[in-house]
């Protein structure tokens, strides 16, 4: 029976019509073999547009449909639903992309139209050979993996757990809380970070639906949407989480002090320690690098004093495999290494510190109990705050880190509040884009911080005039005056930017998701799918996708949770049926394909002497198809006939 194909050329308003003569493309298509009807239409994806297609299917008895419009990544699913709602198998539909890769790339109307015709011909020819396919439905494992226990991961985990679903929350560090736990106050409201964060941390720790795996890393992730398996390495704490009651006696008794990572090295902690008092879990961890027992073979004081006998020097690394249906990646960010900008003297000039070090200084439970002090223990009389350190700079990170302007204002406020110091703030552009942010900027103006519009060129301890002696001289052009100023100060706070974590590449590989040019994880669509990724069932949230402040990170954590929950509540997901099929009769048993399959979906059946494929495991890459010397393997919806037809048509 001959096919009746309907072709619909979309104007997409003027997006396509501006450079492609849609009318003539439709006219041209109408003469292609088996084409029963070809129309051009303003917005084919609109309701009337879709209705038009259904109507044609009903009235003209179309058997196959081609829509020439945007990228299949945009609307393929839309139109598949359209045709199937009118009784045509969704895989008898073919999309022709004449927008992203045709109308938008040129101003040459003639060429664009020619190209559009070729692309449509390809789709029409191909659709002739498309076969009706059944979409395989698989159940969704309702358990969720959340990677990263910063504020984003915490928010996501709690949202999901509260809905009654099980969450595995994996955190690298000994405690959750991330950067936010180390901050003092938060802009623009100035509420104390700990006060709003720690309650959330506690409920994570106590939540019956959250399995918290701290001091652990995800080292493998396999499977497909709804049915993944996460491989997790649990590093030894040398303290039994079950037995430990977090009394802290061990910490008290431990004789050895080491610099505290949590305090950015400004303070000390013991060799057995909790990063900070409200850590979750409250179980301490032994730092093997410093612990006397591990380094010198003697001590075990903690063991002696532990009332619960929770210390276990024999503890070994464990690897566990966890089946989950979905995953949220919230691995956060790294701070820019200020030492890279030599002319700022970080690491060379004692009182040049980073904004995070400042947070610890000003934090009530920090190394100075909240006092802002210089290395000599005296409070500064003048403080300079420097924006855009490592950001908006082609030598380092080209992007704007988005949070620095606001946290710099916060820094200024805290200095103003806690000291008598005169505060200078050096900025390139003041970016106060959020709710209440501009107001916060106004407030700081009123607190008469001296704002200097200019990027700091260098910070030097070489005095040119007596008043500069013994000071840090900040050199910048006051671009509003057109004058270079040398401002002597006691302390400089570098507002360092945010950048992708150093292990972002590994994480991307583990979960097979992409990264954008700046190295942050790539979302499916910057506007319409900000927390989805190209990999179904895997979501990204927070600063691992790009610099974000706390409100935005929390919002994304929630958004990712919502995405996950809607997936779970669908109970089952449809799998692209574009998997491989082996024709056992044609298989020559050459054993090439089993070795090629990256998922071990193909095994060799010694009895039958043929290759056998496990459909559920196949992901449809097609490697085996291309490799099979006897053409015994086909890929559904990408059969040789279909592809050859398309290729012949477009290259003719």
């Amino acid at each position, binding site marked *: 029976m001959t096919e009746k194909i309907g072709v619909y050329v979309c104007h997409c308003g003027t997006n396509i019509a501006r450079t492609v003569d849609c009318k003539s493309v439709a006219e041209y298509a109408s003469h292609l073999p088996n084409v029963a009807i070809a129309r051009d239409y303003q917005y084919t994806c609109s309701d009337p547009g879709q209705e038009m297609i259904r109507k044609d299917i009903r009235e003209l008895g179309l058997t196959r449909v081609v829509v020439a419009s945007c990228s299949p990544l945009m609307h393929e699913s839309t139109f598949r639903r359209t045709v199937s709602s009118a009784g045509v198998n969704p895989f008898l539909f073919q999309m022709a992309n004449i927008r*992203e890769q045709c109308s*938008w790339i040129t101003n040459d109307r003639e060429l664009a139209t020619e190209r559009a015709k070729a692309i449509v011909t390809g789709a029409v020819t191909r659709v002739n050979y498309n076969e009706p396919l059944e979409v395989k439905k698989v159940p969704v494992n309702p358990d969720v993996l959340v990677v990263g226990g910063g504020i984003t991961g915490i928010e996501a985990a709690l949202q999901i757990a509260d809905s009654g679903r099980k969450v595995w929350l994996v955190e690298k560090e000994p405690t959750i809380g991330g950067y936010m736990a180390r901050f003092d106050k938060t802009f623009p409201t100035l509420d104390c970070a700990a006060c709003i964060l720690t309650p959330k941390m506690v409920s994570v720790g106590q939540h019956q639906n959250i399995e918290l795996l701290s001091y652990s890393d995800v080292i493998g992730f396999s499977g497909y949407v709804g049915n993944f398996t996460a491989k997790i390495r649990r590093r030894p704490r040398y303290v039994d989480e079950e037995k430990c009651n977090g009394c802290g006696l061990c910490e008290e008794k431990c004789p050895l002090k080491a610099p505290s990572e949590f305090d950015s090295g400004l303070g000390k902690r013991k060799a057995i320690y909790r990063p900070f008092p409200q850590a979750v879990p409250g179980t301490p961890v032994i730092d093997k690098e410093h612990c006397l027992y591990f380094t010198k073979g003697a001590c075990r004081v903690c063991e002696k004093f532990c009332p619960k006998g929770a210390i276990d020097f024999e503890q070994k690394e464990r690897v566990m495999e966890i089946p989950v249906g979905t995953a949220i990646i919230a691995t956060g960010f790294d701070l820019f290494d200020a030492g890279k900008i030599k002319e700022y003297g970080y690491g060379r000039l004692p009182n040049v510190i980073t904004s995070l070090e400042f947070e610890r200084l000003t934090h009530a439970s920090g190394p100075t109990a909240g006092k802002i002090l210089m290395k000599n223990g005296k409070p500064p009389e003048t403080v300079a705050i420097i924006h855009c350190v490592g950001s908006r700079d082609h030598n380092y990170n080209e992007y704007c880190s988005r949070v620095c302007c606001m946290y710099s204002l916060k820094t200024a406020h805290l200095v103003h509040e806690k000291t008598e110091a005169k505060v200078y703030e050096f900025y390139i552009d003041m970016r106060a884009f959020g709710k209440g942010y501009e107001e916060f900027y106004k407030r700081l103006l009123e607190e008469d911080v001296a704002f200097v519009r200019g990027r700091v060129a260098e910070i030097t301890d070489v005095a040119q005039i007596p008043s500069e002696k013994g000071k840090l001289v900040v050199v910048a052009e006051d671009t509003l005056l057109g004058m270079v100023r040398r401002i002597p100060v006691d302390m400089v706070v570098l507002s360092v930017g945010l950048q992708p974590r150093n292990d972002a590449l590994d994480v991307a590989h583990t979960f097979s998701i992409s990264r954008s040019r700046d190295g942050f994880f790539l979302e499916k669509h910057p506007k319409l799918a900000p927390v989805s990724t190209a990999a179904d069932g895997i979501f990204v949230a927070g600063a691992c996708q790009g610099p974000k402040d706390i409100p935005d990170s929390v919002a994304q954590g929630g958004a990712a949770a919502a995405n996950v929950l809607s997936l779970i509540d669908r109970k089952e997901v449809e799998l692209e049926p574009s998997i491989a099929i082996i024709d056992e009769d044609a298989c020559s048993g050459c054993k090439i394909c089993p070795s090629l399959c990256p998922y071990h979906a193909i095994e060799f059946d010694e009895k039958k002497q043929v290759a056998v494929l496990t459909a559920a495991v196949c992901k449809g890459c097609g490697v085996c198809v291309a490799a099979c010397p006897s053409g015994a393997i086909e890929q559904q919806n990408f059969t040789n006939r279909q592809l050859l037809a398309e290729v012949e048509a477009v290259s003719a």
Partner: protein
Amino acid sequence: MQGKFEPKIVGFLCRWCAYTGADLAGTSRMKYPPNVNPVRVNCTGRIDPTLVLKALQNGADGVLIGGCHPGDCHYTNGNMKTLRRFKLLQNMLNQFGIEKERVRLEWVSASEGERYARTVESMTEEIRKLGPLNWKRMVEVIA
């Protein structure tokens, strides 16, 4: 008259990287010669050399294979398998006397719209210089 010649290029693009990258180029309104007819596949690993030959035989002046950067393949290493096949393919085309510039394998990530645009641009120019591919003549020479 060479100026008039518009090369016809078939582009086999993997849906995860190159195809998405190509979409991005369009979305960001980058301008480049509209000489590529994209053919979407899940993975470059699916690309059977016969598909490339078919394209050339049917009148394409060049073939662009676009996949994920090494290590970024959504199917772990399909792109690497393509790389190996590609080498063989090139030798074979070489024996047909087909210039190697006509068939290219390029890694383009989903965020490299610019890279895709520039690739197509340079490839189109190169092939424009080479002129149309006369497959029949080539093959007759062999026969």
